[in-house]
């Protein structure tokens, strides 16, 4: 047994951290926010060249084949620096879905392109307000043509291809759609986290290709989300750790009443509680990483625990980081709000807490 990452993995993490600190200072994030660009294409290119995001894609599909544990650590580091990349969409979700559901030909067609970063993919599920369930899906495929409106689609502007959840003859199916093809229109949507951009995509008879068995779409989506939840949890703990570190540093340097504010128990104990929530999230995420890497039967429970804990920790750490900073934390100029916004973004993709709380309890019930 070994309940932690190995020394080799920690060394890799150090490398990834140094890369991101160099390649992705916060000015990069702010530049993307201020621009109309869909993502930071230069950073995406560099990250792709490093092979970081291809860690879990098999070598024969153009990946690095290092494994999921390594990808988890990459996600943690990307989260720490708020990397403005479409990895949640293209790697943690789309590549996973293709690996789970794709035919051999589809894998060969798409995985090498996703692994190299040459192609960016995304997932289009949401239409209405509220939790997405099969009954709320109105996008429809008939005769190989997709029509409907998806909103919001994360990284929908950056993506070259989307996997769209739609109704078809045999129920819910997943459909690959080339977003540059006729019958596809998209536009940017102003979003809570402007460093991870959202789009509306309208399909009007767009040509599409089935991924996985038709009628199995929702089950495949759900299986993919268990896997993506673990990877996203690592982004969240990376972000939460960065927020806690910011708060700690500020509390040490800011003086009031003749002493550092970090010497007041109110601040000390608030930071201690942030640390506790982060440690609980981290430990749940490690278990999730193992379950993901080994495809363990515990994955649904481990993924739900990791996600519920990580959502909670990032919300708390990012909110109380602002609180520690006082008024300065409420300025656009300070970086506190970037984490607060990112925490909300990562809490909303893949389905929100209430969904995962139910999943956790159901999985716990099955496990016991």
């Amino acid at each position, binding site marked *: 047994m070994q309940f932690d990452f190995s020394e080799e993995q920690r060394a890799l993490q150090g490398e990834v951290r140094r890369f991101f600190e160099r390649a992705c200072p916060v000015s990069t994030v702010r530049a993307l926010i201020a621009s109309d660009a869909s993502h930071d294409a230069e950073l995406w290119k560099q990250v792709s060249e490093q092979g970081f995001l291809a860690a879990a894609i098999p070598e024969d599909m153009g990946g690095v084949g290092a494994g999921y544990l390594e990808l988890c650590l990459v996600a943690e580091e990307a989260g720490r620096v708020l990397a403005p990349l479409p990895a949640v969409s293209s790697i943690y979700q789309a590549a996973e879905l293709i690996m789970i559901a794709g035919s051999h030909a589809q894998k060969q067609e798409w995985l090498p392109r996703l692994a190299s970063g040459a192609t960016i993919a995304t997932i289009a*599920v*949401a239409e*209405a*307000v*509220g*939790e*997405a369930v099969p009954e709320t899906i109105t996008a429809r495929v008939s005769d190989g043509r997709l029509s409907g409106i998806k*909103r*919001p689609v*994360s990284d929908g502007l950056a993506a070259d291809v989307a996997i769209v959840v739609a109704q078809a003859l045999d129920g819910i199916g997943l459909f690959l759609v080339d977003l540059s093809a006729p019958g596809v229109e998209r536009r940017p*949507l*102003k*979003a*809570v*986290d402007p460093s991870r951009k*959202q789009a*509306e995509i309208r399909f009007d008879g767009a040509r599409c290709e089935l991924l996985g068995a038709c009628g199995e779409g929702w089950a495949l989506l759900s299986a993919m989300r268990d896997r993506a939840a673990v990877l996203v949890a690592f982004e969240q703990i990376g972000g939460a750790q960065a927020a806690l570190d910011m708060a700690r540093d500020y509390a*040490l*340097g*800011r*003086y*009031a*009443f*003749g*002493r*550092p*504010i970090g010497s*007041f128990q*109110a*601040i000390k104990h608030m930071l201690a509680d942030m640390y506790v929530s982060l440690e609980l999230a981290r430990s749940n995420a490690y278990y999730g990483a193992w379950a993901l890497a080994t495809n363990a039967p515990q994955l649904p429970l481990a993924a739900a625990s990791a996600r519920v804990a990580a959502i909670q920790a990032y*919300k708390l750490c990012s*909110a109380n980081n*602002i*609180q520690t900073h*006082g*008024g300065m*934390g*409420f*300025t*656009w*100029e*300070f970086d*506190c*709000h970037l984490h*607060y*916004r990112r925490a*909300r*973004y990562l*809490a*909303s*993709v893949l*389905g*929100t*807490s*209430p969904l995962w709380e*139910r999943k956790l309890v159901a999985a716990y019930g099955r496990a016991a």
Partner: protein
Amino acid sequence: MNFDDTPEEAAFRARARAWIAENAPRALEAELKLSGFGHLHLHSVDRIAAAKAWQRKKFDAGWAAPRWPKEYGGAGVSPMEYVIWQEEEGVYSKLSGPFSIGMGMCGPTVMAWASEEQKRHLLPRLASGEDIWCQLFSEPVAGSDLAGIRTKAEKRGDEWVINGQKIWTSGARDADWGLLITRTDPTVAKHRGLTMFFLDMKSPGVEIRPIWQMNEESVFNEVYFTDVRIPDAQRLGAPGQGWTVALTTLMNERMSIGGSMPTGVPELFELCRELGVLDDPAVASRLAQFAMRASGLRYSAFRSISALSRGEQPGPENSIGKLVAGTLMQEVAQFALDLEGEAGLIEEPGLAVDGGRFQAMLLRSPATRIEGGSDEVLRNIIAERVLGLPADIRVDKDLPFNQIPTAASAGR
């Protein structure tokens, strides 16, 4: 105990309602309803012009400052009648946002400390909307530690010369007057070297820089003073008495902010109804706990009004209003966005759920937990002034102000 109107109150309410029905700018009603948290937003008209027009109309009819004495532009109504007026004014009260700091904090301070002549000049102008006031208290190095301010005032003949910087000044750009706290003696203990003034915001040497906030608004400002001159006649209280004068302002701030904090709870129930989850047992527990805190706040504010009616002073127990409302609004916003699903990510005007109100709450509520006394300061006030627990140990207490440790003196 009577949460209903007495016959006299019912008559007063009818009068208020009739006047509002006749005079309120109905065309703005829908826009005002959506204008969210912390700031007046109007797209169809200039907000300051609309605010001044409504304030003037109220002033002429005696509704602008109902609680103030008549000689200063008020109507001398009772606390209960004022509550009734506020209930009836409803959404139109948002129009008076630009005057709220003046009416709530600066006006009462002027009333307590200025000369009779000054009061008769300044207060009616404030109440009628002619003048806008702002509050120049916080500084970059003095937030929760308000008495740690450094803006310097030096006496030169009949004038004072001001140098320094303020921050978090709401509405400074629209203001005609500012209530300004300064340090006039850095060699005595911090609370003893302060002096209060009111300042013409158009004075030479006043420079205002808007702060761009995390919620993409710019209500707050930095205000810089370079050799700004203030006549000695505009001093409030004696030199060195500034902290005592400031306490008048802060006590009124607590009362003014605490009374009717938005919590987001009615809006959350509306969302649940729209989403058809009001009967969902999964959301009942969260909703009920939120609702109980919101109604508790509401009736706590009511109890304070009854205390006022009995002639009691607003006390430190009013600190719970903002303490509860800030966190409550933040939790409500997060829960609402959880319920919205991925659609909760959309801020796009016209597309965002309910006009994006919960996204706005998410991004505004962190400021509520800080401004006008952070959660931590409010808990200290409750512990010390309501429960009688000892003050924090003060390392700066008996030191001359210029010898108090700072980040700079600690080499950070």
